[in-house]
């Protein structure tokens, strides 16, 4: 039964992918979210240029659309040995339109592909009989050991890969995110659904709904939270179905206030 559901989802994904590629644009991705403080932007650029910076400084630059910082971001991308910083810099460069050669996009896509194509099981214990839901689950630990990976790092990095791809708000991410909905890991499904909501890919709503249907009872509310951000009756109906009312209310208020899923 569980495998049959996955199979249906796979077919649905295949039917929708052609339209996804036709809809992707980068204009939305380049749109500034807000108007950050100019001094904060200048400070952020200086910090990045100095090499002593945090992801928040990169985010400040990207959010402000400070394209003048693109060379600096590229330089730091080349210099940095921190994987997460590289991901953040690549994501910002894509958002700022500083990726004419798709170098950074391909970097991000490659990282996300690792996550969505992984056969890793759930990181958390979704078995209701388990004493705690905190991971890593025995299955995930076994998988990580088999792949000679650190379990926590492998679980965490999969989430980062999907998140930072989604935060580009580049619609080229949609196929990978939809593929994420097919992951045997519900953490990947959950993060992919948020990404699709971040990209407002309404065509993926059926896929998310399907994912909710086949997800364990403990996980379905989490996946369904992404549907809050679609102005779609079916999506909202599913929210009411899976998400606790109070949580749904809070999320809908946030959406109404302009907040995004990520």
């Amino acid at each position: 039964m569980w495998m049959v559901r996955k199979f249906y989802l796979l077919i649905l994904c295949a039917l929708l992918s052609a339209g996804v590629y036709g809809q992707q644009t980068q204009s939305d991705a380049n749109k500034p979210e807000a108007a950050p403080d100019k001094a904060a932007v200048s400070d952020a650029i200086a910090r990045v240029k100095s090499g002593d910076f945090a992801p928040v400084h990169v985010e400040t630059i990207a959010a402000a659309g400070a394209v003048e910082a693109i060379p600096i971001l590229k330089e730091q991308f080349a210099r940095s040995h921190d994987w997460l910083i590289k991901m953040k810099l690549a994501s910002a460069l894509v958002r700022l339109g500083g990726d004419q050669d798709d170098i950074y996009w391909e970097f991000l896509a490659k990282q996300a592909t690792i996550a969505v194509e992984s056969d890793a099981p759930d990181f958390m214990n979704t078995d209701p009989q388990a004493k705690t839901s905190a991971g890593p689950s025995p299955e995930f630990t076994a998988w990580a050991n088999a792949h000679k990976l650190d379990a926590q790092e492998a679980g965490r990095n999969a989430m980062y890969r999907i998140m930072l791809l989604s935060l580009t708000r580049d619609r080229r991410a949609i196929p990978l995110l939809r593929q994420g909905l097919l992951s045997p890991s519900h953490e990947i499904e959950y993060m992919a659904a948020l990404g699709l909501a971040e990209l407002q890919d309404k065509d993926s709503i059926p896929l998310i709904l399907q994912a909710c249907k086949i997800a364990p009872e403990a996980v379905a509310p989490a996946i369904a939270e992404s549907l809050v951000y679609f102005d779609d009756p079916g999506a909202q109906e599913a929210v009411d179905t899976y998400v606790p009312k109070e949580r749904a209310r809070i999320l809908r208020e946030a959406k109404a206030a302009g907040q995004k899923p990520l």
Partner: protein
Amino acid sequence: MHSKRTLLAVIVTTLLFSSYVSHAAGQSSVPGSGSQPAKVMAPHKPVMPAVENPVKWPTPATTRSMVGGFWMTDANFKSSIQIKNVVETDPVKVTPVLYLSNGKRYPLREVALEPSGTAVVSINDALKELGIAPWATLFGYVEVEYHWLWDPVCVTVISIDTVHSVIFTTGLTPSLPSNPKAQGWMAGEARPQLIEGMWWKQEANVTGFVALSNTSGRILDVSLHVTDAKNASMEKRTVSISPHGTKMVKLPDLGQAGNSGGIEVGYVGKYGELLASGGLQDNDAGYSAGLPFVPIVSSSEEVSHSSYAEIGLMTGAADPMMQFPENTTFTPYSVMRNVSDQNATITPTLYWMRDGAAQSRTLPKLVLAPGTSHNLDTRSLLSAAGIASLNGSVNLILDVLGKPGAALLASGSVDKKDTYVFEVMPHAVLESASKGIGYWSTGNGDDTMVTLWNPADEDQDFVFTLFFSGGHYNLPIHLGPRVTRMFNISELIQNQAPDAEGNIIPASVHEGSGKLSGPLGESQHILVSIDEGIYNVRKATCHYGCNTCHGAVFNPAPWIVDSQWRIPKGGNHSLTFYDKWDTGVQHNLTNGSTWNSNDTNVATASLGLVSATASGSVIIDSIDNVEPWSGQSCGSPPAACPVDQGVDGGGGSPGSVTDNTPILTGIDPSDWSSGATTPVTFTGQYFGTNAPTLTFSPSSGISYALVSYNDTQIVANITVAAGTPTEDVDVSVTNNGYGGLGFQSGGGTVSPKSAPVYATVRAPLHSAEVTVIAWVNGNAPDLNPLPTGENSTLQGNLQNGTVAQRLACATQVFEWVVGNKANILNAADASYANAWLLKNSANTAPPSTITPEAQNSAGNYRLINDFGNGKSFATIGKTPDPCKTGLLDWAGAGQPSQYEGYSGTSPSGEVYQIAEGRIGTAGQAGSVTINGRTVGWIWSAIEFNSAGVPTYTNVGMFPTYSVYVNGSLVATYAQSSVAAFIAKDQTYQLTPSQIP
């Protein structure tokens, strides 16, 4: 004093043939013989340079002498002493002494000899000065005394009867030879001694005599046994000779002309105490010749080849240039006797010159039984060689296969009337260095003929130097293979041709001495036979001079300059190896010698350079195996140039290698307790007399105060601060010098600092172990309740109940980590987020008693610091996942500061250990997103003073610190508010310099 008289040069001649002899003899080129012996090559050995600035020799001069020289006077005989100063660098003074036949001693006037100078002392005149009638029939022997380091003169005594044209020549030999081998023969108690001689009868009227001189201070009973050619006895006699006396014994009737035989002289005494000489004479014909004698030394040496050269034997009509009467023709003679106890096989080879090239012919060999003699039929030999009609000279080379020294030889040329007798002294054909000629004369009708023969099959160049009063003259000589050259000294004088230095021999010069050497100097090895004859046609006399083989002398011994040297380990020192020759010239043998060390662990040496490797005493010696010994050939028969060669450094050069690197050999006691001061005695060497420095590694917590010190012992109070863990400590001593001066290594690899020796610091079991645990107290007042005012989304996201909540929570935190300030809209949101995250990642309070190691392993802390009681660890803990997903290790592996686990000693002497860290890099990233600033550090510093009293109050403001002493909770330092800590940034940190 004069008891040890000997004919040592004769011994050397007969006993010490080199291997060259056997080769040279067996390989002589014999044209037409069909054999192709290997060629005899000239020496090509390195030439040791002469020292331009001679060093002062350490050996003092001694009074020495030479003895021998039978002399006789009567109405016709006049005797003279020819003295040659072999030393070219210094004048020499000598005192001749006459011993009459009755042993009476008569010292004569001192004679001063200039460098290379010669002197002739008339015995007749001397006797007259002594009031003794010089025409009286007197005879005896001569001693020449001098105060010198070695025997610096060469002396010959000539007794000449010009009326009858009779002349006898005898030489002197050192009374105490410097030659080590000869010294060995003279050692020991009196025992039977034997001197072998030889006679021959040149013509029918020849008679002979033997002169026996007792050089000892006691009566010697001497036996005289005359034998014929077949060693059959002819006469036996015994005579007693008084101390220092001389007796002449007439030989019996020697039978027919052409006969030959032996003379055995025996006595009981020490080697060399009895001197034997003699002559053959026919006053009517004017014939005279000296008899050869040789002391016998028993030898176990095997049969081998020896080669003797009798060169310049005149044959046929006399050279007109020599101004002999017309129709004077010469015939060579050569007589030989086997004085060994085994057969000797003798093979003669004749060499002569034709058209400037050497010719040769090897003749049938003959075998001499022990004791037998043979007078060669030289006419038949010349005929056999096809040169019966040759007018000129030939060289007769005798290859002897027998025991070394078996052949006793005599040779020369005699005219038909037996008036002119040119004695030729047989010489062993041996490699040598330069050779000296003791005397030449061109005065009073004299002339001196010099004959040179090159025994090698290759060209050789020589320089013949004539010494005369006031100068010298160099004559370059080139000799082709086997070539003979003869010349008269008078020709050189008459030519008046300047030499290469522009010197000429003044026409007024009529006497002097000479030297034949290689062109590279006196020490160049050469292979040459040389003979000189001083003849007087008017007087019809001829005699030989005193030949010298130049070489190293043994008194003084060869010397390595510099001794008792001291060099540091790793250093070098140059030694120079000198020897001194009988000419007075010093030679530097350093580069041509083999250098040895008696202890290569201490030092090695090569080419004079000593390389020091370890401290200790060492003797460096040097050996030169080719340096020839000096020798004289003044006897009858003359000695060959000594083949003895090889000198060493006179016992070597003692020195020492110093290593004043301090050596620490003892530390008592070597166990030092933490928190205590221990009097410690350090023993060893080379600590110096200035205050030494003690060095410890690790040095933390260890200090010292010197109580006393000297070069071998240091007493110091060692203080080890409490809390210093049990550990091995390297202790080193640094020598700071002596007497106020700094350390003087002297070079090399010597170090002022000793190698380390271990001591052990032991932390007393009763000392305190302090453990400080930093933990986040989730029940702190500012976290209960949490701050308010946060937005609802944030509040909703930061939940960790259901799986969905935990995922949403993790996503929220992930966003902050990647720089998204999601849901942080104001300070209240930030305050709430900080507090919520800390409250939900709080640690459980540690118990009141702990086992530090167990607590460390359990990991329920942000930081743990343990120090004291010989223990030490500092660990940064993990931050629990506030969202309870297990995904967030955003502070999982906390970040240690550069001072994490750092221990040291503060300026006030406190030993401390720091534990210091903060949340991991992901957590820091999230915090920077939320709060806009970096994250401060948390820390604990545990300190012990010298009394072992701990201080543990030095902790960060956050979180809560629980302090345990020996596992029991003794103090808890509450955490500051989260807001206060969040207000700090990364500059909030403890550094070691902040610990007083």
